């Protein structure tokens, strides 16, 4: 029977059932929905802040240049433990292989997604903030190790550099961030609250 041919009462009952299902699903997923909205909003704001095409001579771009130089200096210092000949000039690491640290080499997309997910998670701020900072520190350390590994891949397996840089290491960083999120949220749920 076509819907137009069905009695009005049947159609109303059917519409009511659909309405109940939609409302029921929305209620069931309310916490997920809230988390999703806060996560998406935070991530959007952070991505816009990072990816905005700032003026080359503006304060924001200068800040990011300093930040990338700092990142290069950190990675260079770590590499110089094993390679004393390493020299860092601006955002370039020069040794037996040269690496230039530009935007996205800092794995900012993974950091942004992790921080947004942690801050959107419904837990006490006294747990959320330290967990977020600790998790972010681990991600930054992992990314510094990635840069060091890329330096050695550039020396000993140059053919695999592109694959490691574009495909393998981003996957490992995303998996690290997801695992960290699961572990930290588990920790935030478990820790007893003080009365």
């Amino acid at each position, binding site marked *: 029977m076509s819907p137009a041919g069905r009695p009005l009462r049947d159609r109303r009952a059917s519409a009511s059932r659909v309405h109940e299902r939609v409302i*029921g*699903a929305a209620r*069931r*997923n309310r916490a*997920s929905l809230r988390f*999703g909205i806060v996560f998406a909003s935070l991530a959007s704001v952070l*991505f*816009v802040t*990072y*990816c*905005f*095409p700032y003026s080359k001579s503006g304060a924001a771009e200068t800040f990011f240049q300093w930040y990338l130089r700092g990142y290069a200096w950190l990675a260079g210092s770590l590499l110089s433990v094993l390679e004393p000949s390493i020299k860092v000039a601006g955002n370039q690491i020069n040794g037996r292989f040269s690496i230039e640290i530009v*935007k*996205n080499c800092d*794995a*900012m*997309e*993974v950091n942004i*997604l992790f921080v947004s997910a942690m801050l959107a998670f419904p837990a006490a701020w006294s747990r959320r903030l330290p967990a977020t900072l600790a998790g972010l520190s681990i991600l930054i350390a992992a990314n510094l190790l990635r840069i060091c590994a890329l330096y050695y891949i550039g020396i000993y397996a140059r053919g695999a550099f592109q694959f490691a*840089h*574009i*495909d393998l*290491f*981003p*996957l490992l*960083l*995303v*998996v690290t961030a*997801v*695992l960290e999120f*699961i572990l930290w949220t*588990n920790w935030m749920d*478990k820790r007893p609250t003080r009365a």
Partner: protein
Amino acid sequence: MDQLDGQETDKGLSLGTLAARAIGKFLLSFALVFGLFCIPMTVIGPGYVRAFCVLGNAILPEPESAQQLAFRLDPARPSQARPWQAQLDVEDRQAGTRVVMPLETMSLTYIPLITFLALALATPITDRRRELLILVPGFLLTSTITLLLVTLSVTSILNDLSPIRLFNFGPRVMGVLGVLFRALMSPGMTYAVPGLLWWFLVRVTRPPRSTGRPDPRARSATRSRP
């Protein structure tokens, strides 16, 4: 992981241990399925690029007049180093300019698709209907998103580096597209976008939690088991 909802801990295992085991099992399944999809990567590259170009040329608009831009997708010249590379040829006949743009189809389309498929297939769901509800719309959505990302990257790169403009939306809209391009085309997002889509579909299709009271139908079914 979703199956843990309602699982009992009467076997001497804490819920945390069960969750850790489920997560470990899921990660192992994901790694196995993802690895399986990665194995043919060295072989299927040229064939995948050819299929990508045929599909792309079928979607790309045919120029109806000399004023419009002409597009053509072709596999890049055979190369051992870049078997996954296609090239997009854009010609502005009116201005007499032509731009050839390389497209890395592996990171742009293949990896997001296999990431989603591996996540969906590794998810421990026993309900076939729910599995299909995640797999089919998810695969179609991932394909659509990758298509949009390819369009976004072509538009942004042409706008930034060439005299050819695909769209002329004005500086504000182009600025927004530029931000989207930089945010979504970073290497980590190749995995994060299908991952977020998978998470969303798993949450949305989650069955309602039981009220705590035993379901009489389930009890009789359990009793009738040998």
